[in-house]
């Protein structure tokens, strides 16, 4: 309930480890204390963090001019195979704009058109079919984000990983280049791992 009512990205941070944040004000910890069973909270917040990241990543990626739709056209984030993330994303993008453009979340199923997508998140539920999806996206300016614990696939540009209980991501510059995308160095600076060309 609480997460649904306050879906702001700042609130979506998972509890931080006491090792790295030893000096965090205790009141922050108190604020997080009443969040029910720790496991459930962690699962819920993981989807929330991923949704927030998906949204924030838009600001650090340049799409090629050819893919530029009219200035007022929304940026579309497609979510495949992860309803929890989709639900969080719907809460986040409502009424928000990135680079002065509205952001729209779209839930996809196999076979849906991907023509107007800017970003595609392939959840773990769809990872099995990843090989079937990716060839269709090859060469298209779509930021493909996967959630594969084993690492970046051939065509995914970004991939979520869990490090010490925190959601991080890794980036592939060659994949981005193949898609005609340009990743901001500031994004790469906070990536857990960067695959260089």
């Amino acid at each position, binding site marked *: 309930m609480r997460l649904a009512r306050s879906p702001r990205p700042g609130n979506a941070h998972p509890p931080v480890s006491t090792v790295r944040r030893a000096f*965090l004000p205790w009141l922050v910890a108190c604020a997080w204390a009443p969040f029910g069973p720790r496991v459930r909270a962690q699962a819920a917040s993981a989807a929330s963090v991923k949704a927030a990241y998906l949204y*924030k990543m838009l600001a650090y990626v340049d799409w090629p001019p050819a893919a530029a739709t009219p200035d007022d056209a929304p940026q579309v984030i497609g979510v495949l195979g992860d309803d929890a993330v989709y639900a969080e994303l719907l809460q986040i993008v409502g009424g928000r*704009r990135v680079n002065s453009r509205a952001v729209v979340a779209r839930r996809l199923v196999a076979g849906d058109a991907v023509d107007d997508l800017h970003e595609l998140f392939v959840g773990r539920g769809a990872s099995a079919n990843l090989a079937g999806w990716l060839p269709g996206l090859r060469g298209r300016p779509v930021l493909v984000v996967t959630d594969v614990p084993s690492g970046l696939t051939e065509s995914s540009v970004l991939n979520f990983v869990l490090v010490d209980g925190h959601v991080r991501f890794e980036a592939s510059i060659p994949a981005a280049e193949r898609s005609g995308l340009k990743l901001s160095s*500031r994004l790469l600076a906070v990536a857990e791992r960067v695959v260089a060309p």
Partner: protein
Amino acid sequence: MKVEASIRRKVMLVVMTTSLLAQLLSATALLVYEITSYRASWVADLETQADLMAQASAPALNFDDARVAGENLALLRLRPQIESAAIYGARGQLFAAYTAPGHAPLPSELAAEWAAGHAGHVLDGDRLDLQQGIEQNGERLGTMVLRARYDVAPRVRGYLAILGAVTAASLALAGLVARRLQRTITDPIVAVAEVAREVVQQRNYALRAPKTSHDEVGALVDAFNDMLVELGAQAAALQTADRRKDEFLATLAHELRNPLAPLTTALAILDRDDAPPAARLRMQAMMQRQLQQMVRLIDDLLEVSRISTGRLRLRMQKLDLVEVLQAAMESIAPALVEREHTVLTLWPPEPIWVHGDRERLTQVFVNLLHNAAKYTDPGGRIEFAVETEQGAACVRVADNGIGIDPSVQRDVFEMFVQVDHSMKRGRTGLGVGLPLARQLVALHGGALELDSAGLGQGSTFTVRLALLPLHLADARAPAAH
């Protein structure tokens, strides 16, 4: 040279004080401006730094990467002035922090306050707290906070050292310039003093101080030279007066001695029993004349003395001028006869009433007649006339004698002046007759004038005296002094 040193010191003092004050004033203004602008630029610089850091930290906040944020903040070690820095999340929680070695971390109780604040800075003494919002797409991601030590002392010390050096250098320069300039003031003064010393030593009033400028010193030189001119004139006048006194003494001795020889001779003749009666009479008449001459001479001297000491008192009364002329004529007659002059008297039959001192006016006309007789060759012609015109009586004594050169006509009325220094034919005198006559006439409110065409042209002396008004003519005027 003590005076010169003093002026030099004063000029130097004025220049140095002025320079120092100007330097201090400009240095203070410069320092204040420099500190103010330095502080402003320092704050602006830190704001830029915080802004850059905030921009760089936005992705770290976005993707919750405190490690990257910490690495970013750690770069601040390159700025030793920054003691501590921190990044707070949107809810005020500490996200990343940096503390320079040897400094305390930012106090945590301020976190909420800072997280809620917007861009701005607080300057407290030499400590600057600066906060900068971290935003992206209009969303507040967090807050960047810097605390820096505003260490202005070394800069001020550096500036003071530079300003001190500049002040010292400019003072030295001003001293050099003043040293040259003060010579332009002291040199002419020293020159004036030198000339003054020479004038005193040599009694040479023709010396002049050189004028080198047209300023106050030039005015001093001018005034000094004018004073020398005046001193020279006075010295010359004193010398002339001195010379006249010497001549006067010589003449006085001569004049007093002259009658003594004939008197001695006459006494010897009178002493002889066989002297014929006619000779006795002649001797007595001669002795009488010589005595009169001496009495007149001494009377003149006494009068001069009284006038010059202000002790002369006129016995003023209403009197008939014609009677005075007659008395004078009778008094001088023997001398005129002796020199065989022809005297033409032109007097009106009726009285001419004036207000005056009978004896002194008689003395005036005797002196004028004596003068005419003396400076006219024997057998000359003397006109002694009186007439009235425009309310004044004009008595004219004109002769056809040797006359007076126009260039010295003013001098004949100067005391002890003998225009003719030849002393030939006994034409000598004390030189008091004419000055005395003029002063006596002046005391009567009248005027004595001289008119002579030149040497050999004869002389005319005219005395003007105010007539008594006609309606008073018959009244008896009160005696006055």
